[in-house]
């Protein structure tokens, strides 16, 4: 909103005597931001462009042709990747989708419950509970993952889907965002009116509050989806059977084997390219629904 106002005000400012030499100066200034941002975009897109092109090269072309020249081996690379250990790559991709999809869904539900409770009720121990949950953000993941592994090993749960899914359901950051969003989106008098009508607390939450919280919960879901999809450390510690690996861990093991055999490079590169695709697609499709502002905890009220 404010940028719009600034933009509208700009031409008017140019007509005032104070900025008489304005036009040429402003044109030059407007060039600097645009060029700076374009350079930034080139920097961030460069490795992505590289992997797109490199994935089209055959193993021979990869080392012999100029890097940004497309090759002819994309179909063969796909075939090789598909043939690698009976298509274990697709299993990894399915696993990543399962971990991230189901994990983010459960995580969003837990965040919504907690955030709603922390935002709308006044109760004993509220701030303490919130602060203790938030302290979880500060815990280095390795420090949690190693004892989590040892404890799950005692319960005979390591190297299972659950061992990767369960520890990622509670997201302190998700709870934090849900609290902020619920506080801004669910008016106290609406909850009170529901109570006056004799609705149960659960009914008030599911029928009144939850629909109001949906946009914020989409953000929590996507944030958590990306976090789980990108997680490497937890599966790295928990899993040894590559049938349960997510993409990140699978690609890492592929690279580990491929480092000494350049013939496997094309597999790693094609695998990396396909691994990036779903998230970029997800990003482009849902960026309209995703209030990025909320990532920083900013809520327009």
């Amino acid at each position, binding site marked *: *909103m*404010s*940028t719009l106002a600034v*933009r509208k*005000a*700009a031409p008017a*400012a140019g007509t005032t005597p104070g900025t008489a030499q304005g036009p040429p100066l402003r044109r030059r200034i*407007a060039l*600097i931001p645009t060029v*700076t*941002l*374009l350079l*930034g975009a080139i920097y*961030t897109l460069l*490795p992505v462009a*590289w*992997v797109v092109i*490199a994935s089209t090269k055959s193993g021979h072309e990869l080392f012999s042709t100029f*890097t*940004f020249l497309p090759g002819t081996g994309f179909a063969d690379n796909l075939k090789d990747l598909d043939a690698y250990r009976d298509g274990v790559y697709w299993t990894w991709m399915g696993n990543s989708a399962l971990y991230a999809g189901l994990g983010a869904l459960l995580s969003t539900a*837990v965040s919504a419950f*907690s955030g709603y*409770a922390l935002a709308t*009720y006044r109760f004993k121990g509220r701030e303490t*509970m919130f602060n203790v*949950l938030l*302290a979880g953000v*500060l*815990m*280095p993941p390795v*420090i*949690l993952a*190693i*004892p989590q592994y*040892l404890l799950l090993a005692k319960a005979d749960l390591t190297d299972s889907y659950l061992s990767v899914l*369960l*520890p990622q*359901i*509670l997201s302190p950051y998700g*709870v934090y965002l849900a609290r902020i969003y619920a506080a801004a989106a669910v008016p106290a008098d609406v909850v009170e009116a529901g*109570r006056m009508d004799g609705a149960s607390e659960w009914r008030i*939450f599911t029928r009144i509050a939850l629909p109001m919280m949906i946009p914020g919960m989409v953000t929590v879901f996507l944030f958590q989806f*990306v976090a789980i*999809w*990108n997680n*490497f*450390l937890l599966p*790295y*510690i928990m899993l040894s059977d590559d049938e349960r690996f997510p993409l*990140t861990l699978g*690609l*890492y093991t592929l*690279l580990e084997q491929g*480092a000494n055999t350049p013939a496997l490079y094309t597999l790693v590169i094609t695998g*990396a390219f396909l691994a990036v695709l779903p998230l970029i697609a*997800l*990003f*482009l499709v849902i960026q309209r629904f995703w209030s990025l502002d909320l*990532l*920083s905890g900013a809520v327009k009220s």
Partner: protein
Amino acid sequence: MSSSTSRRSYGVKGAPYGFLLPATILFALFFALPIGYAVWLSFRKVHVSGLGLGPGARQEVWAGLENYTGAFRDSELLDGALRVLGYGCVVVPVMLGLALLFALMLDSDRVRLAPFTRLAIFLPYAIPGVVAALLWGFLYLPDVSPFYFVLDRLGLPQPDLLDGGPLYLALSNIAVWGGTGFNMIVIYTSLRSIPAEVYEAAKLDGATPLQIALRIKIPMVAPSLVLTFFFSIIATLQVFNEPTTLKPLTNSVNTTWSPLMKVYQDAFGRNDIYSAAAEATLIAVVTLLLSFGFLRAANRRNKQEAAG
């Protein structure tokens, strides 16, 4: 009437605890219990009697502070901490400097292609750290990298990016690439929340965009700069994925390159979970102390500014 009111108010009283139950259970099982267990393990060790064979020959016994004194004397841990310090001194200023620069540019008047460039710069956020390290890792390899191709054509010297000093820059670049977009969005969001009237007076006074950026915008987004700085420091201390992924490509990244890699190596490479637990506890304590110290300093500054 009165009984139904009291039942209802009882329901209201219990409700928040009910809503918080799943989070509480998960927190107890996957945060509190593991942390407690790690602390407990850090005071334990294995006592081997005889040759360590047969049942009962290996017993877990109380170790006191032995694992902690061991961790302090461990040069690998200290070296890792120093390496991460050097790495952080590059990553944090460069990443946040770029994030602030891009945010200010996005916020300036008459900028073109802003939606496209904003999305492009934010894109690496969606790319797993492992994949990012893998992509850049290949771009650092002389055989396949376009940079070396260009250097070769220009007849310039070709440094080995995966060794010595350049390795720090190579690793830092991966972190900067991955983190700038997210921080840019955080700073940009708070820039947009500044009301337009604030600039109007300055503009009428003939202030240049640069002056407005330096004198008005940057001071006003200081809180979000503090926040991004804080989270960047924590993320830097915890670096693990990127050096681990580059490890297969170079001999210069060893298994104890960063403190967290050292913890992992001790726990699973050397099977010494007790030392690993002590090191992990130490890192957690340092992180918490830094965090609280930092937040207190930031709070104090805010209060002073509010008072002044």
